[in-house]
C-alpha cells in the first residue's frame, strides 16, 4: 500500500480525533448548567478567597464538588495539583462595611466593578473572601459613586416638593434608583449627591 496514502490516512485520523475532542468538550459544556459554567470561567477557576487549607469543608463527593475518584485522597494533597488563588485584597478602609461594597463595585463592566461571576454571591459576603490589605486599612476609598466617577449632582431642587426623596425615588416597583443603590437609605442621598441649584438639566 502506498506509504503516502498511509500518511494521509494518519493525518485524517488525527484531524478527526482532534475534532472529536472538540465536540466532546462542546457536548459537556452544553450539558452543564450555566451556573456551573460561571464557576469554571477560564480566568476564574475558583472563587479565589474560598481557597483555604480546608478545601474538603466545601469540596465533597456528596456535594458533587469534586470527582468521586478523589474521595480517598489526603486532605492535604489538594495543592499538589490545584492552584491556590491569591486573594484580591481591598486596598482601602472598609469602615463602611460589607453592604456598602456594591455602591462602587456593584456594576460589572464598570471600573472596579465585580466580575459577572460574582453576581451569584450575596452583597454582604464580599469581605469573607476579600479582606482588607493591612497596609491600606486607613486609606479612604475613592470618592463615592461608581468606580472613579464622582456622584452625579442632584439635577433638581431639593426643597419643597422635592424635600422627600422617597416621594419619587423608590426601590420598590417603580425602581427609580439604580440597582446597586438598593441597600442605601434614601435619607443618605445627599451624603454623596450634592444638590444643584437649578432645574433639571442644569
Amino acid at each position: 500500500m502506498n506509504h503516502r496514502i498511509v500518511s494521509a490516512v494518519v493525518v485524517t485520523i488525527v484531524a478527526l480525533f482532534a475534532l472529536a475532542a472538540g465536540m466532546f468538550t462542546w457536548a459537556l459544556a452544553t450539558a452543564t448548567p450555566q451556573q456551573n459554567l460561571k464557576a469554571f470561567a477560564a480566568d476564574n477557576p475558583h472563587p479565589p478567597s474560598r481557597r483555604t487549607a480546608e478545601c474538603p469543608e466545601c469540596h465533597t463527593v456528596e456535594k458533587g464538588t469534586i470527582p468521586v475518584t478523589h474521595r480517598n485522597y489526603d486532605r492535604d494533597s489538594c495543592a499538589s495539583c490545584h492552584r491556590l488563588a491569591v486573594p484580591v485584597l481591598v486596598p482601602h478602609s472598609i469602615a463602611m462595611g460589607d453592604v456598602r461594597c456594591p455602591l462602587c463595585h456593584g456594576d460589572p463592566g464598570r471600573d472596579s466593578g465585580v466580575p459577572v461571576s460574582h453576581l451569584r454571591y450575596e452583597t454582604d459576603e464580599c469581605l469573607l473572601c476579600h479582606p482588607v490589605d493591612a497596609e491600606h486599612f486607613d486609606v479612604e476609598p475613592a470618592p463615592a459613586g461608581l468606580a472613579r466617577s464622582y456622584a452625579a449632582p442632584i439635577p433638581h431642587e431639593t426643597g419643597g416638593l422635592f424635600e422627600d426623596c422617597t416621594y419619587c425615588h423608590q426601590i420598590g416597583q417603580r425602581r427609580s434608583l439604580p440597582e446597586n443603590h438598593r441597600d442605601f437609605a434614601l435619607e443618605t442621598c445627599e451624603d454623596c449627591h450634592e444638590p444643584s441649584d437649578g432645574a433639571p438639566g442644569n
Partner: protein
Amino acid sequence: MRLIVRGVLWFGLYLAIILFPLVVGAVFFDPAQAAGPLISLAAACGYIALALMATELALVSRFGGVAGAFGLDSLLQFHRQVGIASMAFATAHPALLLADRAYTMGLLVPASTTPWPVIAGLVAFVGAALVVGLSVFRRQLRLSYEVWHTTHSALSLALIGFAALHVLGIGRFAALPVMRAVWIIYLVSFVGMFLRYRLVRPLSQMNRPWEVTENRAEHGQAHTLVLRPVGHDGFRFEPGQFGWIGFGHSPLSGNQHPISFSSNGDIPNEDGAVAFTIKQLGDWSSEIVPRVKPGTRAWIDGPHGVFTIDREEGAGYVLIGGGVGVTPLYSMLQALETRGDVRPVFLFHGANDLSDLTFREELAAMAERMDNLTLVTVLVRAEDDWSGERGFISADILTRYLPPALYRRFQYFICGPGPLMDAMEEVLPEIGVPADRIHTERFDMV
C-alpha cells in the same frame, strides 16, 4: 476497489474503538462533575491518547485480519505515525490542564503529598515519551534492534498499565461504572492480544522447530539461509510472502525478524526446506546472520503478508526490485516458472552496481528459460562495457519496455529501498497505472 472497501471497514472500526470512550463519557456525563472547557478538552485528549496507545499493541500483534488487509509494512508505518500522534495527544493532556488556571506545575513535579493516580499519570507520560523517543531516534542512539524491541515492548506495557491506574484512579469520567467497564475491557483485550503475540504464539511454535542447513553468501552483501523443518512438514506459502525468523533454543529466546522467502513456496524441496535471503543492513543481519552455522536451531512464524501474486489477478506482472528487494520477486518468478504461467512478466532490477545485483546469475538463467520473462537490469554505476540500462528505474525506462496497449492492466509489485519505493509510487500513477494495481513492500519496515 477491494482495498477501498477494506480500508473503509477497518477505518470505521478503528475510529469507533478510539472514540467510544468519549461517546460513553458524553452520554453518561454527570453535570455535577462539570469542569471548565480546557479540563474537558484535556480529558478528551488523554482518553484518545490512551486508546491510541492501547490499540497500538493490537496493530503489531500479527493479527491476520488487519495485516492481511493492508500489508505489514503499511501497518507498521501506521503504527509508527499513530504512535507519534498519540504522544501529541498525551502531551496536550497535561498542557491543557496547566493552561486552565485551576492546576499548578505540581502536576509535573510530584511531591510527597501528590496523590498516587497523578504520579501514575506522570510515569505513564514519561514512559510514552521514552517509547516514542527511542523509536524515532533508535539509529542515532545506536540502539540495537534486539535491545530496542525488548525495551519497546516492556515500556509499552508498563506505560499502559500506569496510564490505566491514572485513568481509573482520577478524573470525572472514570468514576462512571460504564466507563470503568469500557476501559477494563479495552485493556484486557489489547494487552491480551499483545501477550498472545509475545508469549502464546511463540510457545505454540515450540513443537515446530527448524534447522539451518545452509548459509551461503549472495551478491549485494546478502546471505541466503536455507532452513528445514525438524519433526514436522513445514508449510507452503504464497510467492512474495515473508516469515518472522529467529534463532535460539526456544522461540522466546530471541527477537524475530520479518524476512521475505526467496524460495518457491509452491513446491518446497523434498525435505520441506524454505530459504530466506537477508542483506546486511542492521546489527542482526550484519552480525548474527553471516555467522549462523548449519545445524543452528531456528524458529519461523509464518507465512505472513499480502505482497503476493496469488491475491491479484492481472493480464501480466511487472516486478520492480531494488537490491535485495528482489528477494520476494525472485520467489514469485520461481512460482510462475514452475506453474508454467504464460502471462508476460517484466522484472526491472535496479542496483548501485553489478556487485549489488543479488541473484543476477539466477535471474539471467531464468530469463533464458522463460520466454515470457523480460529482465531489465538498471545500474547506477556501471562499467563502460555495460550493455544494460543505466541510472535509476524511471518512467522512461518502464515505458520503453512495457507494451503500451497492455501495461495498465498488469499488476505491479515493488520491493526495495525507500527512494525506489517513493519514486515508483509517484511514477506509476503518472504513466496511468491504476493505484489498486500497485503493490509495495519496504524491506526495511522494522
